[in-house]
């Protein structure tokens, strides 16, 4: 795994990535303006598809973390690894460049992230809600300020 960490550091060196090993993945954190460039270089390295696109809402820090988990199908050596490409964006103006022209597999997943978090993917070919109706998608259910009430254990 550490070899790949070095390789990633070399490949993405001028984008100032933070590369670290996580539990089951290699984390690559870049600035949101450099996300597209990082994705292109990962694709060049052989990471040909994404497994998930998602976001995490850090409400206290007023930030979203947009996460792409990329891996490889065609290169069996790289298939063992999952690269987590992530970036932080401000919570009040959530916009990030779409990567769905680089990774076609991200298309539906970005639509899903769009509707659940309200993150606008610039340049996405078809940015509509996919699972929810428009009315529900406007509330962005996976943001932390959308609260689902849980019951107590007493009747």
């Amino acid at each position, binding site marked *: 795994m550490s070899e790949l960490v070095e390789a990633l550091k070399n490949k993405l060196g001028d984008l100032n990535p933070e590369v670290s090993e*996580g539990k089951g993945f290699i984390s690559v954190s870049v600035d949101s303006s450099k996300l597209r460039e990082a994705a292109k270089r990962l694709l060049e390295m052989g990471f*040909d598809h994404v497994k998930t696109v998602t976001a995490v809402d850090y409400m206290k820090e007023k930030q979203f973390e947009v996460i792409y988990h990329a891996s490889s199908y065609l290169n069996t050596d790289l298939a063992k690894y999952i690269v987590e490409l992530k970036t932080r964006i401000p919570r009040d103006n959530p916009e990030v460049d779409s990567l769905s022209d680089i990774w076609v597999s991200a298309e539906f997943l970005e639509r899903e992230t769009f509707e659940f978090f309200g993150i606008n993917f610039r340049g996405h070919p078809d940015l509509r809600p996919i699972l929810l109706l428009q009315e529900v998608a406007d509330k962005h259910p*996976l943001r932390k300020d959308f609260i689902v009430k849980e019951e107590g254990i007493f009747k």
Partner: protein
Amino acid sequence: MSTTTTIPKKLPGMDLKKIGKDLYEVFIGPQHPGSGHMRIIIRVDGDVIVEADPDLGYVHRTMEKLAEGREFIKIVPLMERMAILDACNITLPYVEAVEKLMDIEPPPRAKYLRVLLCEINRVASHLYGMGIFGVFLGHSTMYMWPFGDREVFVELAEKLTGARLTHTYAIPGGVRRDLPQGFKEDAEKAVRYMFKRLEEYRKIFLDNPVIQKRLIDVGIISKNLAAKLGIVGPNVRASGIKYDVRIIEPYEAYDELDFEVPVYEEGDAFARAWIRIIEIQQSLNIIRQVLEKMPEGDPMHEKFWAKAPPLYKKVFQETKRVKLIPLFANLKVPAGRAFARAEAGRGEVVYMVESQNAMKPYRVRVVSPSFRNAIVFKYIVPGHRIADLPAIYGSIDYFPPEADR
């Protein structure tokens, strides 16, 4: 009471694009006899589809949000509801991710038991897929046979876990029940029966010239396109990509078992049908091996088992049931983020679990195989005839509840 009904200008979920003048727009679903709870909006030129727009979400349950409000153990039965016929496979990566965060590893016997149920589930899931595939092609016998034979494996799973479908078997730390009496003999009978039946499936379905005509060279996904679309499971292996999580990143006991993963080059619907038959055969082999190689020991991690009072051990001796210590109800998981993947029946399922050292997860992200396969409808279906849509739909084994989560 007014007699005229006003039609709202825009019905919910009806944000349609303008279509070409000579195109005919047909809505396949959501209450269509074949498609299940999903709609594909197709635009046809004559009989040929020029554009397809899959419309998912009819059985969406916001599982990721619900998971944020629940304790870690309660998420296992929740996530099972995605694909109840593949319950162990679909929740296993979640359990693994939690185990990674807690830094515990299940005992070897638990690993084997998980593999056992996973493979029983895989057989059942593939049989379900074959059944739906059969009815899509109008082959009623191929609908009934796999559904009938799936009953054998559902019964087997019930014997092991006590529930026919939603087993909630694998939990962080181990499994909930040990192998019951006489399971090995029954499993051997079921495996022998299924091997025999697969031969008959081949005769009535795969070697049937009518079916072959419908499937060969239909819905071809080339190797590069499959990688680009990021589709998963048997579909991607039918396109010649050697990707199976059980081999790429062996989890549980898979690195100790001997099995084959079939890979086909053709990438058409016929290869996707064949690959499922071969995978069932391999799963049956794995079931046999697991029952032979199963090590003795506890099915639960000693960290939990050590705290158990004597009554728990007595119950385990008598009924093979692993009782849970009350600690499970509010399991505190150390902070961190873990990512895990597993090969479910329909393909790779991935989980990302983030904990902030609390009793409830901060974020659970799950992407199910069917959701990743849904993109096929948009990119592969155009160019085929209307009658090919069911063939492609059936061949990728799309399961709406799983995709919608």
